């Protein structure tokens, strides 16, 4: 039997990195799994080796070839700040980190495939945009926010790398925002606010990807990488109004010119910092992408559609149950009776 595959995952301490490692551990054809990050991942792993390193550091170019990896999965791109990774460091981590990682990949002679977990933010959020972006439609609109420009920059490096190394299968996954019962992200926190501010007169179409499908697609692409970009999104779309109704959340519509300034405050509270500009645009115009390539070429069929992902989030997320005590006396009485 041929020797098994050797996979290296960057950003192992992130939710996605560690979830992917746990999935891959169950796969007997994978001989070796290593994870790179600046901090040790939480939770136990069966056989994943942890390598403490910063992908922004050129020393990576000495570490990576030593692992004799044939597959590198880059999960180190951050959408929002995480503990130990401040908002200021995001640009460095996303752009410089990717650049250093690609440089290290050049030195790794054993490399056969590279999978990058990137974002669908490259398509932008525009009112008049095509309702479903396909992979060729990136950069139809100017990149407006900091995060979008970072993604644009790293996609540029990625394309350059893919062109120079035609023997390596380079796969770029463009993720729609994720949601899931156990996932603590700014969007989930937004949907769990006691009163949710929305933009008056706008009802964006959204595609929220279930966290389980997000990991599933990542594992599928690691097993069967295809060349070029692939959209990762559920089937269908769901409007913000419907999401909030399913979640039983009262809304507070605010005229959109006021929404931005107010939201940079709220964004900081939700843990999205100045990246919240992306959120403001997403919650005004929404975005839909076409997932045909994911289903037919990568061969991954998302388990949840857009509505199913929201329903699952709502039913399992304790914080999203009605926090609001009913203002009616009957409800209060009943609550007291029940608590006995």
């Amino acid at each position, binding site marked *: 039997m041929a020797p098994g595959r050797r996979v290296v995952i960057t950003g192992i301490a992130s939710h996605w990195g560690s979830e992917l490692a746990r999935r891959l551990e169950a796969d007997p054809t994978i001989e070796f799994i290593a994870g790179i990050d600046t901090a040790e991942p939480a939770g136990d792993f069966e056989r994943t080796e942890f390598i403490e390193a910063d992908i922004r550091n050129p020393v990576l170019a000495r570490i990576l070839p030593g692992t004799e990896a044939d597959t590198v999965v880059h999960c180190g791109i951050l959408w929002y700040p995480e503990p130990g990774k401040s908002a200021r460091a995001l640009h460095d981590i996303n752009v410089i980190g990717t650049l250093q990682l690609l440089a290290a990949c050049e030195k790794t002679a054993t490399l056969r495939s590279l999978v990058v977990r990137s974002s669908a933010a490259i398509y932008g959020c525009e009112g008049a945009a095509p309702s*479903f972006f396909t992979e060729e439609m990136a950069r139809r609109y100017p990149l407006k926010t900091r995060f979008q420009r970072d993604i644009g920059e790293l996609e540029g490096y990625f394309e350059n790398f893919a062109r120079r190394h035609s023997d390596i299968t380079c796969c770029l996954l463009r993720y729609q925002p994720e949601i899931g019962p156990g996932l603590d992200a700014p969007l989930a926190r937004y949907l769990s606010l006691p009163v949710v501010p929305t933009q008056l007169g706008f009802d964006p179409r959204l595609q929220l990807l279930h966290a389980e499908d997000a990991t599933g697609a990542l594992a599928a692409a690691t097993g069967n990488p295809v060349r070029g970009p692939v959209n990762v999104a559920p089937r269908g779309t769901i409007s913000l109004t419907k999401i909030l109704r399913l979640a039983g959340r009262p809304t507070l519509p605010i005229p959109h010119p006021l929404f931005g300034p107010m939201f940079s405050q709220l964004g900081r509270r939700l843990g999205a910092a100045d990246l919240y500009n992306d959120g403001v645009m997403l919650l005004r115009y929404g975005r839909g992408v076409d997932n045909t390539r994911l289903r037919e070429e990568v061969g991954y069929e998302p388990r949840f559609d857009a509505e199913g992902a929201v329903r699952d989030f709502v039913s399992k997320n304790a914080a999203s149950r009605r926090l609001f005590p009913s203002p009616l006396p009957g409800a209060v009485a009943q609550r007291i009776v029940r608590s006995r």
Partner: protein
Amino acid sequence: MSATSETPMAGERPVEAVAGTAEFLRRVRSGLNDGLDPMSAAERAAVALPKTLRDSVQRMGRRMAGRYHEDEWGFDEEFAEAVYPFFEFLYDFWWRVQATGVENVPSHGRALVVSNHSGSLFPFDATMLVGAIMKEHPLPRWPRPMVLNWAFELPFLSSFMRKVGGIPASPFNAIRLLEQDEIVMVFPEGVKGTGKQFSERYRLKRFGRGGFVEVALRTGSPIVPVAVVGAEEIYPKIADSQLLAKLLGAPFVPITPTLPWLGPLGLIPLPSRWRIEFCEPIDVSEYPPEAADDRALLFEISERVRDTIQEQLYEALVRRGSAFL
């Protein structure tokens, strides 16, 4: 006969309706006292109401809980049906629309309905075309109009358009819809059509770059040309305000005999008489999808469709006679 008259019907006996409402309110209150939230209390109490009212209370409750269907484009059929009566009123009484040849729209499968465009302020012609297909077709289906992109950047209008089935005008959207075997409605004249002067009425503008033919060829969809007569008279545009257009970012802001002189009253469209005539479909399935790259062919078919609509327009104008009476 007697069985039906015994069941209480909404609006049939006002006294019963009033009694029903009082009973309804009593039940809502008792529901609230039982600790239900207002929506479920109303839903439970709705048994006291006449059937039609009860249905709408229950529908409201269901919708408020998020239990309704939207397709992947954001089209909400229930919402479209709820606003439909307003457009039906315009169709039947305000514009007295007469539609012919609706059966030229296929009952099954994809089709591209191509129409002239007019009605400067608000393109009511699209809504009346939808009405013609929904009211007069033996197997009605909701057609999906391609809407000027600008509308999708505005608050309220954007979400309204989407909920009633409007789609941002993009060839990618048109192709995807046709592949889903929908009826797509396009107005190749675009803003140039709606923004033309009253003196130029019923003279077709350029048909864009023939993008609609490309879409039809790629998807093998029959093209159904339509002539709409009447929409040119609803807001006769005698001038436009470039200053206001620039301020609003709008493609144009029309000045009509009533707008802006009568204030909000000027927004009421004039009650012209309408005719909507659907022509024989043009079958493009003889061409392979690669033919979509052939510019000369695109222009040829585009011209053919344009000539068909123009001729039909002149004939329909004669058949209509007087514009208002």
